[in-house]
């Protein structure tokens, strides 16, 4: 096995072209190898010391979050907490402080677990992944990136350099909530994210929801915006809950039965919507919602 440490994106791309696999925080890759999921790749290129991968940049109409940005930064960066709060909610729930200090957004997205936490909020925020290889750069919607549990449509020689999220409009808010049995080191039993834009009278102008751990990938709730446009968030909660329960295709495993997941995804979706709408209305709900509203684990 070989491990090289990259200093620049070009270093990484060259290594990938030569067959190496990127390793960022290693919290999926190394832990998975130790658990026997799949052996460590023969050749690894460490990307955690590439400065260009760990920037958060605001550009015209977008924020670009470097793939190497850690969850600790995602949950505390003032811009993200203010405007992309659902993402900060998700980052703040991941693992433990030490997991968050090394685990990255790029690793989370490219690992493509159906239980990944940043996926649902990123999807509702309209994020796209920017992939680069020695020969090209392309942008891919997340729904096109994730193809199955642990599977992406990225080529092995492509590096995810950043996640690009469009600027959020006025009167908008987002939130992510997850069902969890304990308050650290947990994996989503189910989770839901919501982003909403309100009209001036406080009703919903548009919105998106996405769901964690109820399908082979993170999935967007189809028809959510249509179902709730023009309604007050409180009135939309039931509609969204049953929409979520209907569209979920959960499995039964040690963390919960399909019946229980199908019910609780509705609860989480309604709560995510509630928190997102309250934030859109100007209410400050600290990150993560789970701790501050007692959602998931009761307060």
């Amino acid at each position, binding site marked *: 096995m070989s491990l090289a440490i990259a200093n620049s994106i070009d270093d990484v791309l060259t290594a990938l072209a030569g067959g190496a696999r990127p390793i960022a925080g290693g919290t999926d890759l190394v832990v998975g190898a130790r658990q026997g999921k799949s052996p460590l790749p023969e050749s690894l290129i460490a990307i955690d010391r590439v400065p260009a991968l760990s920037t958060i940049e605001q550009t015209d109409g977008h924020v670009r979050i470097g793939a190497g940005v850690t969850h600790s930064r995602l949950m505390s960066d003032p811009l993200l907490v203010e405007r992309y709060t659902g993402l900060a909610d998700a980052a703040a729930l991941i693992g433990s402080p030490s997991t968050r200090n090394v685990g990255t957004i790029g690793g989370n997205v490219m690992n493509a677990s159906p239980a990944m936490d940043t996926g649902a909020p990123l999807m509702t925020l309209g994020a796209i992944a920017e992939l680069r290889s020695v020969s090209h750069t392309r942008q891919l919607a997340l729904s096109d990136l994730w193809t199955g549990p642990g599977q992406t449509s990225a080529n092995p020689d492509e590096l995810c350099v950043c996640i690009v999220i469009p600027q959020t409009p006025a009167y908008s808010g987002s939130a992510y909530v997850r069902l*969890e*049995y*304990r*308050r650290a080191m947990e*994996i989503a039993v189910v989770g839901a994210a919501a982003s909403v834009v309100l009209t001036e009278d406080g009703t919903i102008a548009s919105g998106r929801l996405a769901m964690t751990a109820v399908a082979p990938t993170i999935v967007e709730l189809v028809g959510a915006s249509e179902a709730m446009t023009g309604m007050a968030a409180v009135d939309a909660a039931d509609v969204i809950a049953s929409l979520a329960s209907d569209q979920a295709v959960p499995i039964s495993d*040690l963390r919960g039965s399909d019946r229980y997941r199908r019910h*609780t995804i509705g609860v989480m979706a309604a709560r995510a919507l509630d928190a997102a709408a309250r934030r859109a209305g100007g209410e400050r709900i600290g990150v993560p919602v789970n701790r501050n509203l007692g959602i*998931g*684990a*009761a307060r």
Partner: protein
Amino acid sequence: MTTTETPRFVRADGPDKVTGSGRYAADLTLTGMLTAKFLYAGVSHARITKLDVTAAKKVPGVLAVLNQADVPLVRFGSVADRTLFAHEVIRFEGEVVAAVAAIDAATAQKALDAIVFEYEELPVVNDIEAAAQPDSLLVHENWEDYAADDDVSRQGNIASFTSIARGDVETTLATADHVISSRYVADASHAVPIEPRGVVAQWEGDKLTVWSSTQVPFQARDGVCETLELPTNKVRIVVPHLGGGFGGKCGFHYEAHIAALARATRRPVRLVFSREEEFLAPDRRREGMIVEITSGLRHDGVIVARKARILLDNGAYSSDASFFPHMAVMHALGPYKIDHVYGEASSIYTNHQPSGSVRAPTAPQACWALESHTDELAKAVGMDPVAFRQLNTVDTGATGVTGQIYEEIGLQECIREAVAASAYHEDLGDDEAVGVAVGWWPSFPDASGAYIKVDSDGKGVIITGAQECGTGAVMTLPYLAAAELGMAPEDFEIVYQDTSAAPYDTGATGSQTLLNNGRATVEAAREIALQLKKLAAEELEASPEDIVLADGMASVVGSPDSSISIVDLAGIAADGEMLLGRGSGSPPESPTTPKTVSCVGDQGMNAWAGPQFSCHAVRIRLDRETGVVRVLEVNTAHDSGVIVNRVGASGQVEGGVLMGIGQALTERTVYGDDAKQKNAGLLEYKLQTMADAPPITIHFAEVYTPDMGPNGSKPIAEAPNVATAAAISNAIAKLVGRPVRLLPMTAERVWETLQDERA
């Protein structure tokens, strides 16, 4: 009453552990050391048809491959049903089939892969109720031939059985105003010490040293001696720092396997478990249990009769579990004043990992069942659950379920104080409630020994057989010795967990360290005190009876100017009769079984020595839409006698409560249809984390208990693990409208119970 307060208790092993410089078994490296790996059965029930290690032995870098054919055919355990390696029949998935010693882990793995191991699968015994039927498939055929403790009564798959009978239950139930029956089912769970075990063995000539992460080095030594047929003085067990045990490292486990590998290879050999092995292999887990209780009540709330029937999942082998039925019956009958009782419990062989002592074995589950039932009783007569307990639980002078009459005890104080500290009487709204439960636990007086020497500079060493498993109990010994000798705790170092250096002790098991080894240490210190007084008397021209030892000085009573320092006395003694003390002494006698009670297959004691009592009040919040329960506060009160070390005792209560919360809400071992564990890892076996830890208040009802531990103390380590799950259950039942009858009371189970209640 003397109290040895240790307000500034500093753990001698603290800095080592906190800074990471402490060495655990897995950290040891010896010259030429080999790596051991085990081949596990991986199947729950099978007959071995082929085991061929020829190819494995030929793998370059492999120095030994052993199986049962290479060691004496000795059966061991409280029922002698176990062999070191699988013998003819596999009875659970974690059974060791073969052991390899190789130059490194990868080579050892290659050898394991090269072993030809074939078997014919047998149907599995996976369900204790089915296994208890007379026509069930047997886990052990002809097991009546195995040797066992005298009192073990057995038939079919019943590995051990106890019944306790007093009075006339059936007639009393027939005439009771209310008769309530409940059934509760608890899943198996695990001890989960943070350190997976490690064992290193090395021979020098015919003498063996084993470094092992065991809670019970003397039992480990005896296991090695029994299975490898060695005399005790040839075997030395040393325990480096132990990274927790919680009962999981009680008993004898792999010391003999590694010793046999070391002997075969003439090299030191080291075994270090993975987390998965720690879950699957040891014959220690908390047993699954089915508890059925029926109580008869008078309209005024007095319990007149109770019967209980309990099935315990013994697993494939008995390790130390044959006294569990007794413990379970006592917990299902409880610390109540009831004249007519009948309780019976059977521990049933299955093809699961064996059950064995895990912190307060049987108690959290049986207490959970009984105390949940008790709230059902209170509801039936329309009484407040706390008032109901105050009416029916034992107090000083009262007669308990087995006819034992209690000397001074503090249970009523515990109930009063735990409830008073809680929000029990406050209006908590719709989603919060406080549940209350009482618990009890016996003390285990036992043989135990310690030496003390004080050298020429007045510094002492306590050489004790006691084992430290993280409780700090051993580190309390210097405080006891210092108090006897008028010296400072810092004057003493401790040599411990080395079977060749120190006299026998049972180990860090049964909450017994301070109870038994504390007495031994005090006795040893008293021998030195006598020596010091004699010496001082000579120097000061007084009589030894008139010498007092205090503040590092020996003085003549009433004339403080006539004194000499203990350091000076130690210097004098060093040139002649040295300052050496020894202590063991006879353990306190257990109370005798009252004649009014009849029992069968009794492996415990119906009259409990030094019974400890507790009451826990737990405030929870319920998320009604998901069933998620969060514990907000735990108010505890414990009668563990006089508290010798408040810092240490409080640590035990806090740890016990947290472990209890895990057992209540998240910790369970799930078995598949193949009788194999489905969640042998920390990803799916959910412990509580620090983020989940609620505020905990502690009240000690310090009842002076004569003739038990030092200074009127009783033990504390297991007691806090008894009543927490029960109290949480009662809080949940208040909010849900009925109890959740499955343990752990997972979010999904709470939610399902809410659905049932609504329907």
